[in-house]
């Protein structure tokens, strides 16, 4: 009888009920909220479903340190192996390969001055960097937090895996949350910074772009950007390589694989492991909450930076070349959601004003810009992180 009781005690010791903390409850509720946003509200379901489920998965309580090899931070567990792709920054470049194979740079090539909007929106990264420093984070941690303002999940994961691996879970969750919440965060800022007349500006239709231009862009784009920012090589290299696969026209099968099955597989693995990395015992700290607040601020500053810069550009442009400042907000990357928000806001003011094509230009420039910024921060701070 006593033996049976001992066994029962042992079994209970290993159950979730015996190991649960209030933190697990909070995180499971977060996971459920993410699933609700994805399924009911349709906010970035391709990202939020894996991440939301991953949060629940990572917060099923168990006896840590018992050598069961089940937790994401336990060496030898399946989740730990999959998480390796996040920690070592393997998944982000693969995602960039898919993004490159999906992206059409025509809008940018037809109106290259919109590239500057993508540069202006990177302001959020650097202002948040300085703010995070003032709040007690180290330079490496501050840089990894600041990159959330680039609104680019893979870039944020890539940089934090190199500079501040201890913050990777919080940063990834914050970056992807704000990417999903683009339709909620951006419109009030855009409306606040623009007048109705500005939002009604109709832009010149983009010119058609030749095939040769499209083929040359990824080749010279890679050379130019990586010579300036070699730290961004894994991201920029894969982005432009994916785009060359698409535009060359002779590697259709490879382009299709990169743009569909490959990016889907990596998104599943990245989403589930990033979600599972939010294990309450390591994730739920004041630092994580502060990262969320700083991430939101970074994103807002980046949006404002793009919009204000578009207004400044308009001061120097002729009437027919004027830019609708709404598209400045698309400079934060978050492809293609922020471009969609620009289209939606423009259509609210004038249903016949189609801004989507124009907004895609700063949107893809933002992807390049945030990867360049990540490369520069990595180059400047990696040695001190070692």
């Amino acid at each position, binding site marked *: 009888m006593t033996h049976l009781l001992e066994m029962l005690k042992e079994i209970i010791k290993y159950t979730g009920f015996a190991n649960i903390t209030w933190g697990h409850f909070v995180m499971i509720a977060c996971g459920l909220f993410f699933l609700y946003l994805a399924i009911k509200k349709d906010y970035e379901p391709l990202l939020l479903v894996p991440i939301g489920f991953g949060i629940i998965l990572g917060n099923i309580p168990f006896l*840590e*340190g*018992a*050598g069961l*090899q089940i*937790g994401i*931070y*336990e*060496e*030898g567990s399946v989740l730990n192996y999959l998480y390796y792709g996040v920690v070592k920054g393997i998944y982000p470049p693969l995602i960039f390969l898919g993004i490159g194979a999906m992206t059409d740079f025509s809008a*940018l*090539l037809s109106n*290259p*001055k919109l*590239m*500057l909007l*993508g*540069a*202006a929106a*990177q*302001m959020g*990264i*650097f*202002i948040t*960097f*300085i703010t995070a*420093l*003032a*709040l*007690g*984070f180290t*330079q490496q*941690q501050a840089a990894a937090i600041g990159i959330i303002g680039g609104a680019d999940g893979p870039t944020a994961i890539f940089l934090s895996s190199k500079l501040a*691996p*201890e*913050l990777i879970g919080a940063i990834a969750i914050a970056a992807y949350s704000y990417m999903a919440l683009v339709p909620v965060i951006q419109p009030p800022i855009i409306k606040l910074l623009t007048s109705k007349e500005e939002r009604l500006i109709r832009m010149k239709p983009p010119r058609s*772009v*030749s095939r040769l*231009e499209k083929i*040359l*862009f990824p080749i*010279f784009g890679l050379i*130019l*950007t990586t010579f*300036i*920012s070699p730290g961004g090589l894994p991201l920029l290299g894969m982005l432009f390589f994916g785009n060359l696969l698409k535009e060359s026209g002779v590697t259709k099968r490879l382009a299709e694989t990169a743009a569909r099955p490959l990016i889907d597989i990596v998104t599943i693995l990245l989403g589930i492991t990033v979600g599972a990395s939010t294990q309450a015992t*390591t994730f739920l*700290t*004041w*630092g994580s909450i*502060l990262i969320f607040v700083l991430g939101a601020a970074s994103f807002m500053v980046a949006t404002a930076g793009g919009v204000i810069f578009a207004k400044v550009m308009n001061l120097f442009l002729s009437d027919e070349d004027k830019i609708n400042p709404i598209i400045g907000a698309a400079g934060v990357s978050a492809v293609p959601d922020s471009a969609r928000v620009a289209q939606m806001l423009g259509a609210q003011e004038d249903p016949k004003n189609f801004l989507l094509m124009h907004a895609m230009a700063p949107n893809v*420039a933002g992807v*390049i*810009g945030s990867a*360049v*910024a990540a490369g*520069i*921060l990595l180059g*400047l*701070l990696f040695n001190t992180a070692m």
Partner: protein
Amino acid sequence: MQEKMIDSMNTAQKTLQDSLAQSKTVENLGFYPGNITFEALLITVLGYVIVFMALVLLYLFIANYAKLLRLKILKNQQSKGEPEAAKPREGEISGEVSAAISLALSLHFAELHDDESKILTIKKTQRAYSPWSSKIYGLRQYPR
């Protein structure tokens, strides 16, 4: 057996230590304006300027190489003579002709439904008996 258990305990302990080391949380959070050193300001300004310059360079490159490519195309057209360039090459169909053929084909296929036979018939089918598909086993038998 005992050795194995000790090994697994050691591994577990190492794992826990590793995970704790990995999850070193942020300490001493507060407001420290003194952290904004000259070096930090330099990283901020320099970083932003370099990002801007990289994209400005890309902009200048695209703006100019597009012009160069257009010039080259124009030169080619001029050297060959404009009217000749507009003509389709031998064995090639012009854009207008392709559009007309496409429209005709599209109309033809879209209208297919109207040419369908309007006679509806019910065909008799004969199936070999099988207890698996027998109706009698699938119906409820109510007691009378």
